[in-house]
């Protein structure tokens, strides 16, 4: 099953889109993720699976194409990098409000502003707190390998349709650009019209037949009482996701006396930092959130009973550290270490920060 390939993270996403039966990709070029659209244009999946690929005139258009395609019950996706995602956020809020499933990928680069094309994790707040206007959440998956870039395309679509919610893959220029081994899934067929009726017939705009009421994809509810009810419904769904679909990975935590918390490429770096610590006889472990929303709050609270201190490591000025602190609720010291503006820390640098910020206090 599957084929072993050597691929860039971005190429793996493009390939996975085709393999997991995506119906439509709509995107606009921006570094460091342009390979996704480029790969699709070379692969020409419209000739094989029938997948539609279109270079939109802007990210604003792209996300609204996603709204149009998602409304039809199709499996549609877009990808961009930080400035482009900022442009999309009105549309993302509409998608969340109208409860439309889709997949969005943010290959994060350093900001603010036009910033730099170098990797960063500074869009964590934007991704995990909704991003656009209104009370809403996205399911946010944080891949730490090229394999996960590939796998999370399938998982992202599955979760999006399970809950009728946009899924976001939050990755960065490191994972997007690096090449690794990846086992590429076998080709899955795209959904047939009949399958779409079965899965999404209750809400998808596939044409009003005599045997059913109109289907309307909308986020507009003018009466405040009704809009409050809709909000409660969304919140109930988010609580359900928090209950069922938290994902994380632990590394050397069994006997850990200290913990690093890191996602995506930072987690790959921290894995090495943990090895350095273990060589020195320091019992350091790592928790890697795979879903940064929903966040592994409960597991971190448990670990707070076991370890003496936690270091949140991110390529940002300290964003995820707030979620770690909320989970720990003051029980043990929690510190942040990060490089910003496109700088990637080395494992040694992270270990030194751990020594200074967590061990130094002892």
């Amino acid at each position: 099953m599957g084929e072993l390939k050597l691929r860039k993270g971005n190429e793996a996403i493009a390939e996975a889109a085709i393999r997991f039966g995506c119906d439509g990709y709509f995107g606009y070029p921006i570094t460091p993720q342009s390979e996704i659209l480029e790969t699709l244009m070379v692969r020409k999946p419209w000739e094989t699976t029938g997948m539609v690929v279109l270079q939109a005139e802007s990210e604003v258009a792209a996300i609204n194409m996603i709204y149009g395609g998602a409304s039809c019950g199709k499996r549609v996706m877009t990808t961009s990098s930080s400035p482009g995602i900022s442009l999309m956020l009105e549309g993302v809020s509409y998608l969340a409000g109208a409860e439309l499933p889709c997949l969005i990928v943010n290959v994060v680069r350093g900001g603010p502003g036009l910033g730099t094309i170098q990797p960063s994790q500074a869009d964590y707040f934007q991704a995990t707190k909704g991003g656009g206007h209104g009370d809403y959440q996205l399911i946010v998956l944080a891949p730490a390998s090229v394999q996960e870039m590939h796998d999370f395309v399938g998982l992202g679509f599955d979760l999006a349709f399970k809950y009728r919610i946009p899924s976001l893959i939050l990755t960065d220029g490191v994972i997007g650009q690096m090449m690794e081994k990846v086992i590429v899934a076998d080709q899955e067929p795209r959904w047939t019209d009949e399958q779409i009726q079965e899965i999404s017939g209750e809400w998808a705009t596939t044409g009003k037949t005599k045997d059913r009421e109109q289907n309307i994809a909308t986020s507009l509810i003018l009466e405040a009482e009704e809009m409050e009810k809709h909000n409660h419904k969304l919140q109930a769904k988010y609580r359900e996701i928090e209950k069922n679909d938290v994902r994380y990975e632990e590394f050397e935590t069994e006997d850990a006396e200290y913990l690093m918390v890191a996602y995506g490429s930072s987690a790959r770096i921290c894995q090495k930092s943990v090895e350095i610590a273990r060589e020195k006889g320091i019992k350091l472990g790592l928790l890697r959130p795979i879903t940064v929303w929903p966040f592994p709050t409960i597991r971190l609270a448990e670990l707070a009973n076991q370890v003496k201190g936690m270091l949140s490591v991110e390529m940002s000025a300290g964003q995820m550290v707030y979620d770690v602190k909320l989970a720990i609720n003051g029980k043990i010291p929690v510190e942040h270490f990060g490089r910003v503006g496109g700088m990637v820390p080395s494992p040694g640098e992270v270990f030194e920060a751990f020594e200074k910020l967590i061990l130094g206090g002892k």
Partner: protein
Amino acid sequence: MSLLEIKNIINKENLVYSKTKVVTDNVMHYCPGCSHGVVHKIIAEVIDEMDIQDKTIGISPVGCSVLAYNYLDIDWQQAAHGRAPALATAAKRLMPNHYVFTYQGDGDLASIGTAEIMHACNRGENITVIFINNAIYGMTGGQMAPTTLLGMRTSTSPEGRSVDLHGYPLKITELIAQLPGAAYVTRQSVHTPATVRKAKKAIRKGFENQDKKIGISFIEIVSTCPSGWKISPVESNKWMEEHMFKLYPPGDIKDSEKADEDPYKK
């Protein structure tokens, strides 16, 4: 005994007009004299006559017609302000055998959504665009639109639109006619029975063009907004003829199938 007794008038065989079933029974929220309701009705009739209710997807804008889905009994997508052509692009490409149309006001289409309409037209998407040009922002309370005439008073041009302060009214339909992807570009109105019939024919042609896959059909309807213009419905019709038609003259602007005037198309 009269030839047609009251009790017989309502008999089926004596019916001279009935509301198409594609129009719902919901009470419209539009103001008296507004063109939206008439345009809704003729779109519904076209859908009914072409028997494509189960294959039509409407994309409603942000503007007074945001709730168009309450009145036309088809599947709808409600777009963000200005983005209807992007939604329509995806819907049509993913469901090429469906009929997809956008319904947009002048603020929606010619201001915030200028990029989306230009590019959808330029790509020659096989969709139909219904463009309601009432020269004002109706929904938000009568602000200046890109199509507001020079000298016209609105809540954001209280002394009348001036070139110095606000620039010129935008003849976006003429711009769109320049694009090779635009197959059929026409300007209509719905203020008299005769113009309603003509507008309906144009809309029907716009929908039929989707079968021919010849590019976008763009139908501007020069429209009235008595509430925004702050004059009566009757005066609005007169004012529209006297002032709007000067800058926005009704008639076909481009019909590619007939004239094939696109230099790049061959």
